[in-house]
């Protein structure tokens, strides 16, 4: 099961950060060609990211956030980056399914041209406007390449004519709709960044909240945030033990070719098994990362 608990933004024009992006244990790193790169730096960032991806073996999923294709940079970004086969292209400010479909065509052509397996480059989209929220399901389901939708922060708040609050009321409705759209389309829902890196307390509270809402993970802007998110997504020992028992009972019933799964006399249905598998996936990933347990 592919986890995307943390998707870490890395400015594309910072060579030091590009070199070290892979060492912090993020599930996905997103090399950013968009908002963190000044217009005068767009070329440089594109080529730095291209060369970093060409020369460095990253131990995790690598995404590139391109500029929107309505800007003078979006197509150029795709043209430069697709030949080094990113795992994921992230489109910002997605508003319609047509945005996704257009990029899908470009990626398909690149896959053929460079001999990459068909469909091997995935996509995700960030929704940053009211219009995008209204079209969230269409965007999420616009291409089989789509693996996640995310909610973008500041642009969305500007569009909504509001600002950040401590308990995140302003995002409430959008987050709710995003989750529903992602689940209906069968893809991941990723929450927005929390920019105030030194405010750990509110970051923890927000991450707990979005996990409870059903988000699969969170965008992060600093390596220090990674382990906090991973800790929050880590199941408790009790949950893990329960999940292990559920899976064992399920396997046993498969072996017995019995349609009924029961644990301690209680019937277990498919959603419970699914939840157990999910818990174990998170536990395994956390085990891989528990060396970062105190960060």
């Amino acid at each position, binding site marked *: 099961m592919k986890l995307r608990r943390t998707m870490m933004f890395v400015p594309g024009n910072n060579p030091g950060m590009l*070199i*070290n992006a892979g*060492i*912090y244990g993020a599930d996905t790193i997103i090399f950013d060609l968009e908002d963190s790169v000044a217009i005068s730096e767009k070329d440089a960032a594109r080529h730095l990211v291209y060369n970093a991806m060409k020369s*460095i073996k990253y131990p995790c999923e690598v995404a590139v956030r391109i500029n929107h294709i309505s800007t003078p940079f979006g197509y150029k970004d795709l043209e430069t980056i697709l030949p080094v086969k990113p795992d994921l292209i992230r489109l910002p400010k997605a508003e319609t399914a047509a945005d996704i479909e257009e990029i899908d065509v470009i990626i398909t052509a690149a896959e053929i041209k460079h001999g990459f397996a068909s469909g091997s480059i995935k996509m995700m989209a960030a929704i940053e406007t009211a219009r995008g929220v209204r079209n969230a399901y269409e965007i999420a389901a616009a291409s089989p390449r789509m693996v996640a939708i995310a909610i973008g922060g500041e642009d969305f708040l500007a569009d909504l004519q509001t600002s950040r609050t401590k308990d995140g009321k302003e995002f409430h409705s959008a987050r709710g709709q995003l989750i529903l759209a992602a689940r209906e389309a069968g893809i991941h829902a990723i929450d927005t960044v929390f920019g105030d890196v030194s405010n750990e307390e509110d970051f923890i509270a927000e991450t707990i909240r979005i996990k409870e809402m059903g988000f699969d993970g969170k965008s992060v802007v*600093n*390596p*220090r945030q990674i382990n906090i998110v991973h800790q929050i997504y880590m199941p408790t020992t009790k949950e893990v033990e329960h999940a292990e028992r559920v899976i064992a009972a399920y396997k046993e019933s498969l072996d017995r070719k019995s349609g009924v799964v029961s644990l301690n006399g209680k019937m277990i249905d498919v959603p419970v098994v699914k939840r157990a598998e999910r818990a174990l996936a998170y536990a395994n990933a956390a*085990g*891989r990362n*528990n*060396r*970062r347990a*105190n*960060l």
Partner: protein
Amino acid sequence: MINAIGREIPENIAGIKNIKPYSGPFAYTPAGRLTGPTIILNKPRSEKVLKSIEQAIDATGLKDGMTISFHHHFRNGDYVLNMVVAAIARKGIRDLTLAPSSLNNINEEIIPYIEQGVITAIETSGARGKLGKLLTNGKMKKTTIIRSHGGRARAIECGELHIDVAFLGAPACDTYGNMNGVEGKSACGSLGYAMVDAAYADKVVAITDHLVPYPLYPVSIPQTQVDYIVPVEAIGDPKGIASGALRISKDPRELLIAQYATTAIEYSGYFNQDYSIQLGSGGASLAAAQFLKEKMKQQGITASFGLGGVTAPFIEMLDEGLIKAIYDVQDFDIPSIQSMKKNANHQEMSASFYANPHNRGPIVNQLDVVILSATEVDVDFNVNVITDSNGVIMGAVGGHQDTAAGAALSIVVAPLLRGRLPMVIDQVHTVCTPGETVDIIVTERGVAVNPRRKDLRDNLREANIPLMDIEELRDIAYEFAGKPDPILVSDEVAAAVEYRDGTLIDVIRKPL
């Protein structure tokens, strides 16, 4: 001749008698007796307070060719060394050996006196900036001798480094020579490095900007060792002496290194009730304090003692009861100085008590775990902390050799890359600490255990840290940064690096 770590040591080095090649951390057995200062008659109510440094220079009988010493507790806020050397120059005295416990950038002021021949030899722990360059470029008449803190204490006590006059900055001093470092506007905390000088120099001059009526207590250096006292306006700049509380780094790479290092400690087999620990003051080792604290709390473990080089995060551990006692040779920030003043569990110690390998027992021999920094390390686990990527002196050996040799587990932390430079390489330019005393190298991309320590490697298997061979770390570094060309050097030996036991572990040759 070739020493035990394969370094070529010349048979003759100008100004160094009785050259012994390094042959292993505990291979050299010393013989002979301790040396000591001259004995004198002191009559009742004799006056020790003098009017000026010049008067003190006269009173001590300082002459051409003698050796003078200083402590470096005031670090980059030190006025004493510069002030005294300037006064000596005015007196027309020449050809002195300068033997401070270390040198800082602020001491660059003495360069003109070196050029004029007032100072013609230096024996110290290290140097930085222009002074480091000058020492590397062979501008001294005699070869510079680099010693660790423990090695310096040893050399003084056995007479290899004979100090004629010690000029010791005293943050507080009474009219009969009792001094401490915790009072006065120039408080620096421990006077640990000065204690050996005070006990063994022929003449001891206290220079103070806080002269108090007799008696001063607590006493760090006693009246029985002090000949003269000179009150001056200021012995240092408080801002350069100690910073505000040293804080934990926010650099994610340093935090990651610190975390690997503390996880290594946790699984090493040494993380037990009443273990002991020393942490450096560098970014990653300071950050390690934070993670160690959490692990100790989680597992209900407390330490029997901590050693240092003391900083605020260490003091927090003492105050929270996680460390029972601190033994302190040097303080880096204000909370540490205040703690030594008020907390009886925070003990001052001398450099000899700390690290001299040839006394009846330095405390490093009781140390379980130390975290040390490095400039570069090599595939034999040798560590360089003194020369930079151009072969120029820019650091100090400090207690590195001593704690690495004494501790049951010595961990060296370093980034794998600094800018475009690889930090794990085939061969370090200058060996300060021999690889056989280094157990683990921790970088942000991997952790290497010395193959001599199979036990450790086994223990760390469960630790979930990226264990790899040191050669793999080197290869990763080279893959990013390329293999550096060796630094081209001449035959001229600018400095000799002593091991703590007085043998020569390496020499620093003048770069071409």
